[in-house]
């Protein structure tokens, strides 16, 4: 088992004819993901590396049976592309695009929330990897192998770093889910932790957070109330000075709330162990798995 993407995933890639879209769609396909379609308006009927291209997401659903969409269009078109995928009946939408206007994200989130059957992961996320089954997005899949650690992270490269630390210690992953660091992520830590809790393959959950917002604090409450599996956390941004933007819009620190320290304390208060570095985080996970 794993969460969200697996051998049943039938992926449509919007923006497939762009340079990056082609590169990563091809990578995902090569990994073994069923990439059944691409969408680029006006290029319907073409093919990209053997993947048929359609004019609309609706066509990719009707004709190629797509059930998952990866959004790879430029930021100004991404909200429209996500709404199109949802309208076409796609149940899981994974938005890689970085730099989507925050108000676009807000509109999309508010609209999608009205349909509980549709799940958005991202935007501004590296995607989802279920090692040995399917890779959707830009996670360098060859570094990870199948196992029992579920990883959920707001940061792309930090996800790889932590996954890699685990891999070097011999641990594999059920799934690695990047939820993105944008102001309005489609899925929260809680949403993904809930899935890992239900996933039989996952034995331990590693969550990687960062400064800004309150998603980690909310996850702490949720974990204490609902999660039976061990959770280990990492928080980036202890060194960030207050009031400075650190690249993610999600990383605006306002006052004390949202600091790395506040998040660490909130998690530890609920019994979640927090590693001080990616390495220490991996070591704690290892220790817990060893102790089981």
């Amino acid at each position, binding site marked *: 088992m794993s969460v969200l993407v697996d051998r049943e995933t039938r992926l449509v890639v919007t923006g497939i004819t762009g340079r990056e879209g082609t590169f990563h769609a091809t990578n995902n396909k090569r990994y073994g993901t069923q990439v059944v379609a691409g969408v680029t308006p006006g290029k319907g009927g073409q093919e990209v590396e053997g993947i048929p291209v359609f004019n609309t997401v609706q066509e990719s659903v009707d004709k190629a049976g797509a059930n998952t969409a990866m959004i790879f269009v430029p930021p100004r078109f991404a909200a429209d592309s996500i709404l199109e995928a949802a309208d076409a009946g796609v149940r899981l939408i994974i938005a890689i695009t970085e730099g989507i206007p925050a108000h676009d994200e807000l509109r999309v989130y508010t609209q999608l929330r009205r349909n509980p059957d549709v799940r958005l992961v991202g935007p501004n996320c590296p995607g989802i990897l279920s090692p040995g089954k399917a890779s959707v997005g830009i996670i360098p899949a060859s570094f990870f192998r199948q196992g029992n650690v579920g990883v959920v992270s*707001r940061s792309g490269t930090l996800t790889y770093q932590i996954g890699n630390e685990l891999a070097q210690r011999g641990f594999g992953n059920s799934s690695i889910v990047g939820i993105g660091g944008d102001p309005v992520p489609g899925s929260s830590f809680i949403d993904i932790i809930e899935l890992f809790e239900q996933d039989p393959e996952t034995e331990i959950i590693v969550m990687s957070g960062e400064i800004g917002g309150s998603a980690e604090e909310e996850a702490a409450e949720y974990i204490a109330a609902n999660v039976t599996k061990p959770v280990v956390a990492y928080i980036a941004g202890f060194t960030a000075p207050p009031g400075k933007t650190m*690249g993610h819009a999600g990383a605006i620190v306002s006052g004390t709330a949202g600091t790395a320290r506040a998040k660490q304390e909130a998690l530890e208060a609920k019994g979640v162990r927090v590693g001080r570095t990616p390495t220490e985080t991996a070591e704690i996970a290892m220790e817990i798995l060893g102790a089981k």
Partner: protein
Amino acid sequence: MDLLEYQGKQLFARHGIPVPSGKPAKTVDEAVAAADEIGYPCVVKAQVLIGGRGKAGGVKIAKDRAEATRHATDILGMDIKGFTVHEVWIEGASQIAEEYYASIVFDRSAKAPLVMLSTRGGMDIEAVAEEDPTAIARLHVDPLLGFQDFHGRKLAFAANIPADLVRPVGAMLTKLYAAFEAEEAMLIEVNPLIVTPERDVKALDAKVTLDGNSLFRHPENAELRDPSAEDPQEQMAHERGLTYVKLDGDIGILGNGAGLVMSTLDVVAQAGGAPANFLDAGGGSKADAIVSAVEVILSNEKVRAVLFNIFGGITRCDEVAKGLIEAFDIVKPEVPFVVRLDGTNDVEGRKLLADANLPNVATATTMNEAAEKVVELAKTGVAA
């Protein structure tokens, strides 16, 4: 993107939000001419992207031309918490009967705009919030429905606004929300929102933060970025499309992805070092972006050693290695580098570096090892 007060007021005026009239000035002569035109008494206000300018002496009332001249001379060039005042805003002095507070925040936690209103304006609103949270009326808005008239009434009555002001304050909130939405703001704050003795409602201050990602839809706002208000290094980075924040230490940092870079800062700090900057080279960095990044990092004279921490996903390690080699060729850095490459095409990247045999470049296989090495190099010039 933060706007200066006067830019915020000009944005407000476009949306029909009443603001005092005024003029910006960059020199004492301009300021005095503006004051003469506006009439006395008027207010000379420092335009800086930092709060607390009042306490720092950056806001002064001028009764006449002599005072206007003196205040403009004092304020222009003044340093307020590390920000130099390059511009002042001269506006007519307002008669103030009441000082309220109003704001609209893009609330990430609730995933909805949050509108706040309080009669306790004119002071530090965070202090008010701590001392008496009930003094601030709050309301989340469904972004697809938008701000309704009843929202304005609900907030106004909840904040105990006097009955005769419920309608004008509600109308002000409606317009502020319209501006928030139309301009794609992350924050709009009016403190104080004043009531004049004639019971008119006006925005006496304006704090506006726009969403940088939406500026392509707002070319007139995109032009408001004031490079002179930015740190020169940050300005250089911005022009080159890099996310760079200057910090106080001496270890230059480059990574790919904001989370990894923040983590790198933490690990360096834990190893006893002090980072000189945050620099995210971004996803899919190409060689020329790396050259630019090295130039930006080294333009900070405090830097004594540089750490490259790359975990390739969309970024390919061979591209980073190529960029570093090219940068050495162009910039010829005098400080030592520690490079850690992992992820996509890491084998190729490491080989390129090994073949290039750059002077003063050490490699590391883990993030912790890299941090320890660079801290040592910054202290001693020699790797541990």
